[in-house]
């Protein structure tokens, strides 16, 4: 964080890289899953549900970014975005199967 880059250990740099990837890729996964979940579950006409899901997805993306850099370790960052994504993916799978059997 300080500009004395020479004093920064490699471990720290790798952790920051890992957190960035968690935010970028994991966050995108979470945002996508959340948007699909809203789309499939919202009691609205299809096109409105799609719009609402997409519009709200960015809230999740921003929250994922914040989580990935606020949590205590890079492992927790990954854990915190992948676990809810998996839960949402299961809900999505179930909802999709019920709507389009």
């Amino acid at each position, binding site marked *: 964080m300080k*500009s004395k880059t020479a004093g920064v250990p490699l471990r720290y740099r790798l952790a920051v890289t890992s957190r960035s990837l968690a935010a970028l890729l994991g966050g995108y996964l979470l945002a996508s899953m959340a*948007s699909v979940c809203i789309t499939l579950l919202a009691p609205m006409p299809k096109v409105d549900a799609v719009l609402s899901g997409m*519009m709200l997805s960015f809230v999740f993306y921003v929250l994922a970014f914040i989580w990935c850099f606020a949590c205590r370790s890079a492992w927790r960052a990954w854990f915190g975005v992948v676990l809810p994504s998996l839960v949402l993916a299961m809900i999505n799978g179930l909802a999709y199967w019920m709507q389009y059997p």
Partner: protein
Amino acid sequence: MKEGFRQAMAWLHTWTGLIFGWLLFAIFLTGTMSYFKEEISHWSQPEVRSHPLDPAASLGLAQAYLQANAGSASSWFIRLPSVREPALNVGWRADGGGRRGFINKALDAQSGEVVEARDSRGGEFFYRFHFQLQMPHPWGRWLSTFCALIMLLGLVTGIITHKKIFKEFFTFRPGKGQRSWLDGHNAIGVLVLPFHLMISYSSLVLFMYMVMPASIMASYDSPRGYFNELFGQSEAPKSAGIVAPMTSLPSLYAKVQEQVPGARLGWIEVQHPGDQNARVNFTRAAADSVAYRRSGSWSFDGVSGELLRSGKAESTAVMVSGTFVGLHMGNFAEPWLRWLYFVFGIAGTAVIGTGLVMWLGKRQLKHATSGSLPTELRLVEVLNIASMSGLLLGVAAFFWANRLLPVAMQGRADWEINSFLLVWALSLPHAMLRPGRRAWGEQLALGALAFALLPLLNGLTTGQGLNHSIAVGDWAMAGFDLTALALGLFLAWAAHKMLRAPKPVAKRAPRAAKAPRETLAEPEVN
């Protein structure tokens, strides 16, 4: 990562701001210019004359021109002159021309003759650069949308970082170097915060169908199905292959006016002109409402003139997303509101610029005594200079090229863009060769000269200088010249500061020591 939530957010704010700040600065500056896209285009093509608006007559002219010159085209597009855009624009897709075979012409709104204007992209260039970054499709759109997300993140983390957001808003301590930059950054950021939040979130809404398509994929077989349902479009009928005389477009215009008195029209599309199955689609001008509305559209039978369909009413979700899109584009804004948009855009640009300057300034202080910067700080300094003052020089080069390149030159519009890119690129080696403050000062001084002399250049090369434009009330032209002049004066002031100011470090050290504790504790946020 530091301990504590606010510290972590300050860290995130600082580093995402640094990495994306350079690009965001360019996106914000060109976006701000785009609020005056039509006015910039008017300046870039002074040959196009303004006339009092008469939509029905213009439509008649457009129809006559297209009938004579594009009778066999598969579709026509017409854009009526407006208060901001003097030309009557027509376009058509040549039969069998495919996607590339699109021809555009600007007609004089009174005579219907083609205007022989200099080849220039004008305001359209900066508008496109704002979200395509001169990159191949779709990468520029992806990158600029990602920058918007980072901007939104920067705003949220910036808000979290500032515990005393309300108090900071009223705090400005000028003449105190780093502290003044931080106060300025905070005050502008907070003052224009609603605009900033709106503009960065709405840019995500603009391209969400592209960057977040999972919902569309889960619900529709193809994006086309989604768009057809969203805009309530029906597929165009096939051409019947039977020649039939077309109804007159002004009569259809009258029918639209019966439906919605006073409606201004945006795009008008004629499918299969001269065919039995001709269709005429009218869309309402975006300037007519804040939100982008799908209801403002009418589809007519091109032969009988019968109204076939008018646009679906908006649902809440469509209205919300349309409002965000409309707020971002600001097409509805009348002159005063448009200027407010412009000022807010400049404020956004300034927040990014001050943030970049601060990042470096804070770290420079530690090396003030040695007089030389470590490589990574020097790199940031060079990029700061080239991305800010260098970009301004590039913009100036675009407008100088517009006035100086021969009107008949081949590929003229491309060379305007090349001048922009070349001069911007040249600012980089200049920033590398000169010491920091001198590089700033020299580029700002050159920029000051380039912008302040633009009105003079305009007057000399086109005869439509300020003396003429103010006299005839051409405020788009005069406004451009006056803005260039004002920008030139501002840059001169900034260049003067950079070139004259003594080394500020020695003077500041004792003052900083006397400052109250709470203000000293805070600079760690930047």
